[in-house]
Protein backbone atom coordinates (compact mmCIF):
# COMPACT_ATOMS: atom_id res chain seq x y z
CA UNK A 1 0.00 0.00 0.00
CA UNK A 2 1.07 3.52 -0.70
CA UNK A 3 0.17 4.47 2.85
CA UNK A 4 3.08 2.66 4.40
CA UNK A 5 5.84 4.48 2.61
CA UNK A 6 8.70 5.98 4.56
CA UNK A 7 8.64 9.71 5.05
CA UNK A 8 11.23 10.40 2.33
CA UNK A 9 8.82 9.03 -0.27
CA UNK A 10 6.06 11.09 1.28
CA UNK A 11 8.08 14.25 0.92
CA UNK A 12 8.98 13.32 -2.65
CA UNK A 13 5.28 12.89 -3.35
CA UNK A 14 4.59 16.32 -1.90
CA UNK A 15 7.40 17.85 -3.94
CA UNK A 16 6.10 16.29 -7.15
CA UNK A 17 2.96 18.41 -6.86
CA UNK A 18 4.91 21.65 -7.34
CA UNK A 19 4.94 22.08 -11.10
CA UNK A 20 1.33 21.40 -11.96
CA UNK A 21 -0.03 23.49 -9.08
CA UNK A 22 1.74 26.63 -10.29
CA UNK A 23 0.84 26.18 -13.94
CA UNK A 24 -2.81 25.31 -13.29
CA UNK A 25 -3.52 28.41 -11.19
CA UNK A 26 -1.79 30.69 -13.71
CA UNK A 27 -3.72 29.10 -16.57
CA UNK A 28 -7.05 29.45 -14.76
CA UNK A 29 -6.32 33.13 -14.02
CA UNK A 30 -5.33 33.75 -17.64
CA UNK A 31 -8.47 32.00 -18.89
CA UNK A 32 -10.75 34.02 -16.59
CA UNK A 33 -9.08 37.31 -17.59
CA UNK A 34 -9.19 36.48 -21.28
CA UNK A 35 -12.84 35.47 -21.06
CA UNK A 36 -13.76 38.67 -19.20
CA UNK A 37 -11.88 40.75 -21.80
CA UNK A 38 -13.70 39.02 -24.62
CA UNK A 39 -17.01 39.56 -22.84
CA UNK A 40 -16.55 43.18 -21.70
CA UNK A 41 -14.23 44.35 -24.48
CA UNK A 42 -11.80 46.00 -22.08
CA UNK A 43 -8.60 45.49 -24.00
CA UNK A 44 -5.65 43.70 -22.47
CA UNK A 45 -6.17 45.01 -18.96
CA UNK A 46 -8.26 42.33 -17.29
CA UNK A 47 -6.10 39.62 -18.87
CA UNK A 48 -3.01 41.16 -17.28
CA UNK A 49 -4.61 41.68 -13.89
CA UNK A 50 -6.12 38.22 -13.67
CA UNK A 51 -2.93 36.55 -14.88
CA UNK A 52 -1.11 38.27 -12.01
CA UNK A 53 -3.86 37.09 -9.63
CA UNK A 54 -3.41 33.60 -11.03
CA UNK A 55 0.35 33.63 -10.43
CA UNK A 56 -0.16 34.79 -6.84
CA UNK A 57 -2.85 32.13 -6.35
CA UNK A 58 -0.45 29.52 -7.73
CA UNK A 59 2.19 30.36 -5.13
CA UNK A 60 -0.43 30.43 -2.39
CA UNK A 61 -1.71 26.98 -3.41
CA UNK A 62 1.87 25.76 -3.64
CA UNK A 63 2.70 26.77 -0.08
CA UNK A 64 -0.53 25.24 1.16
CA UNK A 65 -0.12 21.96 -0.68
CA UNK A 66 3.42 21.65 0.65
CA UNK A 67 2.13 22.20 4.18
CA UNK A 68 4.25 25.29 4.73
CA UNK A 69 1.12 27.21 5.73
CA UNK A 70 -0.81 25.29 8.33
CA UNK A 71 -3.59 27.84 8.65
CA UNK A 72 -4.90 29.90 5.75
CA UNK A 73 -3.13 33.02 6.95
CA UNK A 74 0.09 31.90 8.53
Amino acid at each position, binding site marked *: *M*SDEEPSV*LRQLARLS*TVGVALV*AATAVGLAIGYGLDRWLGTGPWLTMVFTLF*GIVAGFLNLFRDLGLLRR*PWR
Partner: protein
Amino acid sequence: MTAETVQKSSDGKGIWLLLVGLVVVNLLLGFFLAPRHVALEHAPIVQFPNFLAFLGVPGTWLPAHVTFTWLVMALLVAGSLMATRALKAVPGPLQNFAEVVLEAFFDLLEQMIGKQGRQFLPLVGTVGLFILTSNLLGNLPGFQAPTANWNTTVALALTVFVWYNYAGIRKHGLAGYLKHFCGPIWWLAPIMFPIEFIGHLARPVSLSVRLFGNIFGEESVIGILISLAWLVMPYMIWLGVMLPLSLFTAAVQTFVFIMLTMVYIAGAVEEGHGEEQH
Protein backbone atom coordinates in the same frame (compact mmCIF):
# COMPACT_ATOMS: atom_id res chain seq x y z
CA MET B 1 -13.32 -3.79 14.32
CA THR B 2 -13.33 -0.84 11.98
CA ALA B 3 -14.59 -2.95 9.11
CA GLU B 4 -17.70 -3.70 11.14
CA THR B 5 -18.51 -0.11 11.97
CA VAL B 6 -18.20 1.00 8.36
CA GLN B 7 -19.96 -1.85 6.65
CA LYS B 8 -22.84 -2.42 9.05
CA SER B 9 -24.51 0.79 7.92
CA SER B 10 -25.29 -0.53 4.43
CA ASP B 11 -28.15 -3.00 4.30
CA GLY B 12 -27.76 -5.86 1.89
CA LYS B 13 -30.59 -5.40 -0.57
CA GLY B 14 -30.41 -1.68 -1.23
CA ILE B 15 -26.88 -1.76 -2.53
CA TRP B 16 -27.65 -4.55 -5.00
CA LEU B 17 -30.71 -2.70 -6.29
CA LEU B 18 -28.58 0.41 -6.69
CA LEU B 19 -25.88 -1.48 -8.57
CA VAL B 20 -28.32 -3.21 -10.93
CA GLY B 21 -30.07 0.10 -11.55
CA LEU B 22 -26.78 1.82 -12.32
CA VAL B 23 -25.77 -0.90 -14.77
CA VAL B 24 -29.15 -0.75 -16.54
CA VAL B 25 -29.05 3.03 -16.80
CA ASN B 26 -25.48 2.89 -18.08
CA LEU B 27 -26.36 0.31 -20.72
CA LEU B 28 -29.31 2.41 -21.91
CA LEU B 29 -27.16 5.54 -22.00
CA GLY B 30 -24.48 3.65 -23.86
CA PHE B 31 -26.97 2.41 -26.42
CA PHE B 32 -28.61 5.75 -27.14
CA LEU B 33 -26.10 8.45 -26.31
CA ALA B 34 -22.69 6.98 -27.04
CA PRO B 35 -22.27 8.08 -30.70
CA ARG B 36 -21.96 11.69 -29.62
CA HIS B 37 -19.23 10.91 -27.14
CA VAL B 38 -17.10 8.64 -29.26
CA ALA B 39 -15.10 11.63 -30.51
CA LEU B 40 -13.85 12.24 -26.96
CA GLU B 41 -12.11 8.90 -26.83
CA HIS B 42 -8.37 8.98 -27.31
CA ALA B 43 -6.83 6.02 -29.00
CA PRO B 44 -3.77 4.58 -27.28
CA ILE B 45 -1.68 2.14 -29.24
CA VAL B 46 -2.31 -0.85 -27.01
CA GLN B 47 -5.96 -1.01 -26.18
CA PHE B 48 -8.11 -3.92 -25.21
CA PRO B 49 -11.37 -3.64 -27.13
CA ASN B 50 -14.55 -2.68 -25.39
CA PHE B 51 -15.97 -5.88 -23.86
CA LEU B 52 -19.48 -5.70 -25.26
CA ALA B 53 -18.45 -4.66 -28.74
CA PHE B 54 -15.73 -7.30 -28.61
CA LEU B 55 -18.34 -9.98 -27.89
CA GLY B 56 -20.21 -8.95 -31.01
CA VAL B 57 -23.16 -7.25 -29.33
CA PRO B 58 -24.56 -4.78 -31.87
CA GLY B 59 -24.84 -1.10 -31.12
CA THR B 60 -22.41 1.68 -30.37
CA TRP B 61 -20.99 1.17 -26.90
CA LEU B 62 -19.33 3.33 -24.35
CA PRO B 63 -15.62 4.10 -24.78
CA ALA B 64 -13.08 1.75 -23.26
CA HIS B 65 -12.21 3.80 -20.19
CA VAL B 66 -15.83 3.61 -18.99
CA THR B 67 -15.87 -0.15 -19.40
CA PHE B 68 -12.65 -0.45 -17.45
CA THR B 69 -14.11 1.85 -14.80
CA TRP B 70 -16.92 -0.70 -14.43
CA LEU B 71 -14.34 -3.45 -14.15
CA VAL B 72 -12.56 -1.61 -11.35
CA MET B 73 -15.88 -0.96 -9.63
CA ALA B 74 -16.80 -4.62 -9.89
CA LEU B 75 -13.42 -5.66 -8.47
CA LEU B 76 -13.71 -3.27 -5.53
CA VAL B 77 -17.34 -4.13 -4.75
CA ALA B 78 -16.71 -7.87 -4.98
CA GLY B 79 -13.57 -7.56 -2.86
CA SER B 80 -15.22 -5.55 -0.12
CA LEU B 81 -18.30 -7.77 -0.08
CA MET B 82 -16.17 -10.89 0.20
CA ALA B 83 -14.08 -9.31 2.94
CA THR B 84 -17.04 -8.19 5.03
CA ARG B 85 -19.70 -10.81 4.36
CA ALA B 86 -18.82 -13.03 7.30
CA LEU B 87 -17.09 -10.90 9.91
CA LYS B 88 -15.34 -12.82 12.65
CA ALA B 89 -13.67 -11.82 15.87
CA VAL B 90 -10.55 -13.64 14.70
CA PRO B 91 -10.26 -12.38 11.13
CA GLY B 92 -9.40 -14.52 8.14
CA PRO B 93 -6.79 -13.35 5.63
CA LEU B 94 -9.16 -11.23 3.53
CA GLN B 95 -10.80 -9.52 6.49
CA ASN B 96 -7.37 -8.99 7.99
CA PHE B 97 -6.20 -7.26 4.83
CA ALA B 98 -9.32 -5.06 4.74
CA GLU B 99 -8.75 -4.06 8.36
CA VAL B 100 -5.12 -3.20 7.69
CA VAL B 101 -6.13 -1.00 4.75
CA LEU B 102 -8.85 0.71 6.78
CA GLU B 103 -6.51 1.33 9.71
CA ALA B 104 -3.97 2.86 7.33
CA PHE B 105 -6.61 5.23 5.99
CA PHE B 106 -7.79 6.12 9.49
CA ASP B 107 -4.24 6.87 10.61
CA LEU B 108 -3.64 9.06 7.59
CA LEU B 109 -6.93 10.91 8.06
CA GLU B 110 -6.29 11.65 11.73
CA GLN B 111 -2.76 12.71 10.97
CA MET B 112 -3.71 15.13 8.19
CA ILE B 113 -7.13 16.47 9.22
CA GLY B 114 -7.23 15.91 12.96
CA LYS B 115 -9.87 14.58 15.29
CA GLN B 116 -12.74 15.18 12.87
CA GLY B 117 -10.91 13.35 10.07
CA ARG B 118 -12.66 9.99 10.44
CA GLN B 119 -15.93 11.19 8.96
CA PHE B 120 -14.22 11.71 5.60
CA LEU B 121 -13.24 8.06 5.19
CA PRO B 122 -16.01 7.33 2.62
CA LEU B 123 -14.65 9.90 0.19
CA VAL B 124 -10.92 9.49 0.75
CA GLY B 125 -11.00 5.71 1.01
CA THR B 126 -13.13 5.23 -2.09
CA VAL B 127 -11.08 7.62 -4.18
CA GLY B 128 -7.79 6.17 -2.98
CA LEU B 129 -8.75 2.53 -3.58
CA PHE B 130 -10.32 3.34 -6.94
CA ILE B 131 -7.26 5.21 -8.20
CA LEU B 132 -4.82 2.60 -6.90
CA THR B 133 -6.77 -0.25 -8.48
CA SER B 134 -7.11 1.59 -11.79
CA ASN B 135 -3.42 2.47 -11.93
CA LEU B 136 -2.39 -1.09 -11.18
CA LEU B 137 -4.90 -2.44 -13.70
CA GLY B 138 -3.17 -0.42 -16.39
CA ASN B 139 -0.02 -2.47 -15.87
CA LEU B 140 -1.64 -5.71 -16.99
CA PRO B 141 -0.97 -6.22 -20.70
CA GLY B 142 -4.08 -5.52 -22.73
CA PHE B 143 -5.77 -3.47 -20.05
CA GLN B 144 -6.06 0.28 -20.04
CA ALA B 145 -6.11 2.28 -16.80
CA PRO B 146 -9.35 4.29 -16.53
CA THR B 147 -7.27 7.07 -14.96
CA ALA B 148 -5.30 7.40 -18.21
CA ASN B 149 -8.31 9.24 -19.62
CA TRP B 150 -8.89 12.84 -18.66
CA ASN B 151 -12.65 12.35 -18.34
CA THR B 152 -12.22 9.94 -15.42
CA THR B 153 -9.79 12.12 -13.50
CA VAL B 154 -11.92 15.23 -14.05
CA ALA B 155 -14.88 13.37 -12.57
CA LEU B 156 -12.79 12.40 -9.54
CA ALA B 157 -11.37 15.90 -9.08
CA LEU B 158 -14.79 17.55 -9.38
CA THR B 159 -16.18 15.14 -6.78
CA VAL B 160 -13.39 16.12 -4.41
CA PHE B 161 -13.90 19.83 -5.20
CA VAL B 162 -17.65 19.75 -4.49
CA TRP B 163 -17.15 17.62 -1.38
CA TYR B 164 -14.54 19.75 0.35
CA ASN B 165 -16.44 22.96 -0.35
CA TYR B 166 -19.60 21.33 0.98
CA ALA B 167 -17.74 20.17 4.09
CA GLY B 168 -16.45 23.71 4.67
CA ILE B 169 -19.90 25.26 4.23
CA ARG B 170 -21.48 22.66 6.51
CA LYS B 171 -18.87 23.34 9.16
CA HIS B 172 -18.71 27.14 9.11
CA GLY B 173 -21.92 28.19 7.37
CA LEU B 174 -21.87 30.00 4.03
CA ALA B 175 -20.80 33.39 5.44
CA GLY B 176 -18.16 31.87 7.70
CA TYR B 177 -16.74 29.84 4.83
CA LEU B 178 -16.61 32.87 2.54
CA LYS B 179 -14.72 34.71 5.26
CA HIS B 180 -11.87 32.24 4.61
CA PHE B 181 -11.60 33.79 1.18
CA CYS B 182 -11.18 37.38 2.32
CA GLY B 183 -7.74 37.42 3.80
CA PRO B 184 -6.32 38.51 7.13
CA ILE B 185 -6.82 42.27 6.80
CA TRP B 186 -10.12 43.80 5.82
CA TRP B 187 -8.77 46.24 3.23
CA LEU B 188 -6.97 43.42 1.45
CA ALA B 189 -10.26 41.59 0.83
CA PRO B 190 -10.94 43.01 -2.68
CA ILE B 191 -7.54 41.67 -3.80
CA MET B 192 -7.58 38.46 -1.80
CA PHE B 193 -11.02 37.34 -2.92
CA PRO B 194 -10.21 36.92 -6.64
CA ILE B 195 -6.87 35.34 -5.74
CA GLU B 196 -8.52 32.81 -3.45
CA PHE B 197 -11.27 32.20 -5.99
CA ILE B 198 -8.77 31.46 -8.75
CA GLY B 199 -6.75 29.33 -6.38
CA HIS B 200 -9.76 27.19 -5.52
CA LEU B 201 -10.78 26.86 -9.18
CA ALA B 202 -7.24 25.77 -10.04
CA ARG B 203 -7.34 22.86 -7.59
CA PRO B 204 -9.53 20.46 -9.61
CA VAL B 205 -7.56 21.41 -12.72
CA SER B 206 -4.21 20.57 -11.17
CA LEU B 207 -5.53 17.42 -9.47
CA SER B 208 -7.01 15.98 -12.64
CA VAL B 209 -4.18 17.01 -14.96
CA ARG B 210 -1.51 15.61 -12.64
CA LEU B 211 -3.08 12.16 -12.33
CA PHE B 212 -4.12 11.93 -15.99
CA GLY B 213 -0.76 13.18 -17.25
CA ASN B 214 1.30 10.76 -15.21
CA ILE B 215 -0.72 7.67 -16.02
CA PHE B 216 -1.35 8.54 -19.66
CA GLY B 217 2.31 9.37 -20.28
CA GLU B 218 3.41 6.14 -18.69
CA GLU B 219 0.91 4.12 -20.73
CA SER B 220 1.98 5.86 -23.93
CA VAL B 221 5.65 5.02 -23.35
CA ILE B 222 4.75 1.41 -22.56
CA GLY B 223 2.55 1.25 -25.66
CA ILE B 224 5.37 2.50 -27.88
CA LEU B 225 7.82 0.03 -26.33
CA ILE B 226 5.42 -2.87 -26.85
CA SER B 227 4.76 -1.85 -30.44
CA LEU B 228 8.51 -2.20 -30.98
CA ALA B 229 8.72 -5.47 -29.09
CA TRP B 230 10.05 -7.39 -32.11
CA LEU B 231 13.36 -5.60 -31.52
CA VAL B 232 13.62 -7.53 -28.18
CA MET B 233 15.52 -4.66 -26.55
CA PRO B 234 12.39 -2.49 -25.92
CA TYR B 235 10.75 -5.52 -24.37
CA MET B 236 13.59 -5.79 -21.87
CA ILE B 237 13.40 -2.06 -21.17
CA TRP B 238 9.69 -2.48 -20.48
CA LEU B 239 10.20 -5.37 -18.08
CA GLY B 240 13.29 -3.97 -16.40
CA VAL B 241 12.62 -0.25 -16.26
CA MET B 242 9.09 0.75 -17.14
CA LEU B 243 7.19 -1.89 -15.18
CA PRO B 244 8.82 -1.15 -11.79
CA LEU B 245 8.63 2.53 -12.57
CA SER B 246 4.94 2.40 -13.37
CA LEU B 247 4.17 0.39 -10.24
CA PHE B 248 5.96 3.13 -8.32
CA THR B 249 4.03 5.84 -10.18
CA ALA B 250 0.75 4.10 -9.45
CA ALA B 251 1.37 4.17 -5.69
CA VAL B 252 2.85 7.68 -5.59
CA GLN B 253 0.11 9.26 -7.69
CA THR B 254 -2.56 7.61 -5.54
CA PHE B 255 -0.88 8.94 -2.46
CA VAL B 256 -0.54 12.44 -3.95
CA PHE B 257 -4.21 12.52 -4.90
CA ILE B 258 -5.58 11.46 -1.52
CA MET B 259 -3.01 13.58 0.34
CA LEU B 260 -4.08 16.70 -1.55
CA THR B 261 -7.74 15.76 -1.00
CA MET B 262 -7.06 15.67 2.73
CA VAL B 263 -5.10 18.94 2.62
CA TYR B 264 -8.07 20.61 0.91
CA ILE B 265 -10.57 19.17 3.38
CA ALA B 266 -8.36 20.19 6.29
CA GLY B 267 -8.13 23.72 4.91
CA ALA B 268 -11.91 23.90 4.52
CA VAL B 269 -12.99 22.53 7.92
CA GLU B 270 -10.23 23.74 10.25
CA GLU B 271 -11.20 25.60 13.40
CA GLY B 272 -10.64 29.31 13.80
CA HIS B 273 -9.85 31.75 11.03
CA GLY B 274 -6.87 33.40 12.68
CA GLU B 275 -8.83 36.42 13.90
CA GLU B 276 -9.23 34.88 17.34
CA GLN B 277 -5.50 34.82 17.89
CA HIS B 278 -4.92 38.50 17.14
